[in-house]
C-alpha cells in the first residue's frame, strides 16, 4: 500500500506555487497527496481542482480546514458541509470546540498540528473520536525548525501527544504539513522519523501514513452516502445487494 502526505498547504491564488509543490512531490516519489486549499475567505474557482489534477499523475485528494474562534463559529461553519467531498478538519486549541467537533459526525479529523493545540490534547477528546470513528492528526513540521531549543520543545510536545494517542489506541494520522518546498519529505522517510524519534512501532507508523488515511477517505465517502447511518448500518433497497 502506498503512503499519503496528508497535508500539503497551497495558496489558491498562486497556481505556480501549487504546480511547483506538486512537481516537487512527484520528484520525491510521493504518490498520494491530500491538498489543503488555503482560500483566505475567497471563493474557490470550480475548475481549480481539475487544473490541479492535470499537473501530475499524483493521486490528489482535498481537505477543508476549519479554524473556529468559538463554538457558535464552529456550528456556523459546519452548516451544509456534511455533503462535502473534502475531508473536514477542525483545528482549535479550545477544549470545548475540540469536544464539540469530536461529537459531530460531519467532522472527520481533529487536528493537533499546531503547538498550542498540541498542548491541549486530553484523553476525553481521544475517546470521543474513537466512538465517532473520526481521526486525530499530528504534524511533523514543527520538528524541522532551525532553532534547536524550539525544536527540542516541539519534539517533546509531539512525543507526549503521540504517546497519549498511541496508549489510548486512538485513530490517528500523521502528516508532514511542511510550509517550505525544500522541507517536504517522502512519507516513508517520515515513517522512520516517527519510529525512531516518537517511539511508535514501525507498523503503527506505517499505518498512520497509509491504512489510517485510507480509512479516513472511506469515512468521507460514507459521510456523503445518504443511506449510510453509522458504522455497520446502511439502508439498502429491497432486492439490492450490498456492495
Amino acid at each position, binding site marked *: 500500500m502506498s503512503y499519503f502526505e496528508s497535508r500539503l498547504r497551497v495558496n489558491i491564488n498562486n497556481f505556480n506555487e501549487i504546480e511547483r509543490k506538486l512537481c*516537487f512531490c512527484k*520528484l520525491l*516519489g510521493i504518490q498520494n497527496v491530500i491538498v489543503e486549499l488555503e482560500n483566505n475567505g475567497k471563493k474557490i474557482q470550480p475548475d481549480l481542482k481539475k487544473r490541479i489534477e492535470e499537473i501530475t499523475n499524483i493521486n490528489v485528494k482535498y481537505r477543508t480546514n476549519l479554524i473556529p474562534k468559538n463554538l457558535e463559529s464552529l456550528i456556523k461553519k459546519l452548516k451544509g458541509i456534511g455533503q462535502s467531498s473534502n475531508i473536514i478538519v477542525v483545528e482549535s486549541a479550545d477544549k470545548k470546540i475540540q469536544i464539540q467537533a469530536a461529537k459531530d459526525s460531519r467532522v472527520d479529523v481533529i487536528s493537533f498540528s499546531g503547538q498550542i493545540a498540541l498542548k491541549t490534547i486530553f484523553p476525553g477528546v481521544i475517546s470521543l473520536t474513537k466512538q465517532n470513528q473520526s481521526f486525530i492528526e499530528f504534524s511533523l513540521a514543527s520538528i*524541522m525548525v532551525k532553532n534547536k531549543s524550539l525544536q527540542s520543545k516541539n519534539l517533546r510536545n509531539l512525543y507526549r501527544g503521540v504517546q497519549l494517542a498511541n496508549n489510548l489506541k486512538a485513530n490517528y494520522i500523521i502528516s508532514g504539513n511542511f510550509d517550505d518546498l525544500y522541507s517536504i519529505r517522502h512519507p516513508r*522517510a*517520515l515513517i*522512520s*522519523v516517527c*519510529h525512531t524519534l516518537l517511539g511508535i512501532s514501525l507498523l503503527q507508523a506505517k499505518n498512520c501514513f497509509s491504512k489510517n488515511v485510507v480509512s479516513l477517505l472511506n469515512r468521507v465517502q460514507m459521510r456523503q452516502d445518504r443511506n449510510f447511518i453509522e458504522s455497520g448500518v446502511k439502508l439498502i433497497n429491497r432486492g439490492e445487494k450490498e456492495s
Partner: protein
Amino acid sequence: MISEHSKPFNKQEILNSIWASLWKYFGLKEASRVGLWMVDINFLEGFGIIKCSHHTKEIVISALTLITEISGNKIVFSPIKTSGTIRSIQITKNLLLDKNKKNIKDIQIMKIS
C-alpha cells in the same frame, strides 16, 4: 538528493552533515552502532548509495531526512530503495540512470520536433 542551488558539494561535506545529524538526534551510542559507509555518490544525477548496519537502517533514514541544509544550501535526502545487498542496489541505480537518460532523450526529441 535534491538541492536548491546547483552549487556542487563534495563527498566530505555530505558525510560530515550525515554524521552531524546522527550525533544531533541519536547521540554517541546509536552513532557508534551505525557503521556508515558511502559506497557511491553521483552529484550530477543526484543520488548515492549508503551502506550501514541493518539494525540501524531506520536511524540512518531519519538522520538523512532531518538534514535540511548543507553550508547554507537547502537540500533534501530522500530514500529511494533499501536492500540487503549492494548488488541489487546497483541494479536499481542502473535502471534509474537508464530512465533518466531516456527522459532526457525524449525531451531533446520534443525540442527538435
